[in-house]
């Protein structure tokens, strides 16, 4: 594989992390001559806030690092240094738990839900899209797929709300929310695993249903383009079976831009899943972020956002590194 390609992608990843963290540092500070965070923290301290314990110390620590008396570049360096060490201070609302601890507890839930539903949606959607672009596919497939295609543009959480109403509230088939039965202790038993899966079905389904349409739609477009290529025509003239042409010639090539699309959509997908978590009170990063926003848990917001940027950057990097394995033209690029 071309080492230049890898170096380039890793550099891009570092650039993304750097620009992202810098943006969230500088943008709020563009507000003229005030430090809204310090103000808000001050208010909390004055009124007694949610959790007075340790608040004074945190306000003090914040002032020392980011106070108005400090020059901006010094604040920035402090901030970047903390980010590099994953040091996001304490959670204001849940003192003395640190932000890092809380985020780490939430990460497995988010990653599990997100990974399974995204991969399912991508795989099913790509296959359906490929079939929709294939002239031999029976007409009935088009009719079946149309509602899914229509739902491709609907935000996940909107679909989640509807599903929650129908399947959890109305028919009571599935739990209304949460990650597992309230109060259960995580153990490696079938009962617990089933409980987790049971709770994940609705949030995952709302992401898969909307995702399938999205991937099917773009795959259909790619497929139509690919079927117009000379090598597909020649494959038929060589006497290959339709099945072989479909998988090895058409779909195999159409999946390439689709993979790029997946990398480009990583941010949108993660954002969507965070909102689904909010709707379903799923114990992942989305819910943590939501609680942090409503309770103005300032350090928490920064911690979660940093992880979100990191995760999307890493996912994109991973897909960029997988891509050459799928496309020999990148792998064996001649100098």
């Amino acid at each position, binding site marked *: 594989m071309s080492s230049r390609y890898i170096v380039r992608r890793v550099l891009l990843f570092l650039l993304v992390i750097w620009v992202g963290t810098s943006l969230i540092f500088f943008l709020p500070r563009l507000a003229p001559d005030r430090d809204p965070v310090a103000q808000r923290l001050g208010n909390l301290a004055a009124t007694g806030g949610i959790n007075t314990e340790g608040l004074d110390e945190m306000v003090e620590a914040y002032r020392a690092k980011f106070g108005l008396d400090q020059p901006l570049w010094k604040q920035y360096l402090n901030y970047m240094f903390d980010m590099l060490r994953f040091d996001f201070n304490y959670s204001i609302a849940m003192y003395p738990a640190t932000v890092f601890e809380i985020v780490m507890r939430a990460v497995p839930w988010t990653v599990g839900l997100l990974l399974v539903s995204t991969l399912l949606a991508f795989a099913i959607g790509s296959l359906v899209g490929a079939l929709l672009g294939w002239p031999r596919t029976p007409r009935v497939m*088009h009719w079946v797929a149309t509602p899914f295609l*229509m739902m491709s543009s609907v935000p996940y959480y909107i679909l989640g709300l509807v599903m929650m109403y129908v399947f959890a509230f109305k028919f009571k088939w599935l739990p209304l929310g949460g990650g597992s039965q309230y109060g259960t202790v995580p153990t490696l038993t079938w009962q617990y695993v089933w409980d987790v899966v049971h709770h994940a079905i609705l949030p995952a389904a709302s992401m898969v249903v909307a995702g399938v349409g999205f991937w099917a739609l773009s795959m259909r477009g790619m497929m139509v383009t690919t079927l117009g290529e000379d090598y597909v025509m020649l494959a038929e003239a060589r006497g290959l079976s339709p099945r072989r042409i479909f998988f090895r010639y058409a779909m195999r090539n159409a999946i390439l831009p689709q993979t790029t699309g997946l990398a480009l959509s990583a*941010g949108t997908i993660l954002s969507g899943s965070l909102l689904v978590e909010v709707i379903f009170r799923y114990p992942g990063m989305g819910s943590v972020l939501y609680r942090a926003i409503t309770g103005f848990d300032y350090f928490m917001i920064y911690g979660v956002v940093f992880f979100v940027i990191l995760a999307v950057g890493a996912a994109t990097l991973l897909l960029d590194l997988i891509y050459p394995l799928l496309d020999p033209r990148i792998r064996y690029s001649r100098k």
Partner: protein
Amino acid sequence: MSRSWGYVRRNPLLLVGVAMFILLLLFWLIGPQVIDVTRARPISAMADQRPSAEMPLGSDSVGRELLPNLLVGSLYTFEIGLTAGLIGLVVGTILGFIAGYFGGVIDSFISTAADVALTIPALAVLVVIASVIKEVLNVRNLALIVAALSWMRPARTIRSQVLSMRERSYVEIARLSGMNDWQIIVQELLPNLLPYLAATLVGAVAGALLAAIGLEAMGLGPQTEPTLGMTIFWCNYYGALLRGMWWWWAPPIVAILYVFAALFAISSGLDELANPRLRRAR
């Protein structure tokens, strides 16, 4: 002209989308004549009322009447989406043209910036900004914040289109006919991009709506305005779903589905216009 009409007639999706959109416009135009929009404010009606002849969509827990709420909210929401989408399109188109047409260092810079900005999840950045200025967040501010992160996709699309068009011989012929760079961009390249620009606008509006409603659903929207996303936030906040108040949460959802369905129909229709190969697939 008759040629374009012929296209549109063979393109029912586009027609459906535009019709849905016109219906929405009518709702916004005629609505305020029939509905008292002041009742979209809290404590203007009795709280928690089911739909009735008097209040067709009932009221919520803080005493907003929900039909005016829907009217005002959907209009605000669309205003945010359209403003942000338009700004994103204009900025993105200008950047895309500069990058694609002039190339060189400026292209490397713009392309890398767009790639980086595209990888940073918009929601993350928006959450940080919005949470800090939550109190002063109004419809216009929200639109501007969302717009700041809506230029990348248009910039990418337009850049690649310009890049491929710039290689066409008609650009060289235009130069030999005495045109300068700006005349070539405006008179030769831009007209060919019209279907793309339209499709990109629809995409940018949809993207901006998605981001804005998402932010609002987290509570980071105009606190005093009943936009669709904020209504969903309040539903969630007051547990409307679990309390069986379907008249509260269903209308904004239906409205959002409707808007996205209309945008979807228009964009697939435009896609077919811009990419005739897709027509064969049906």
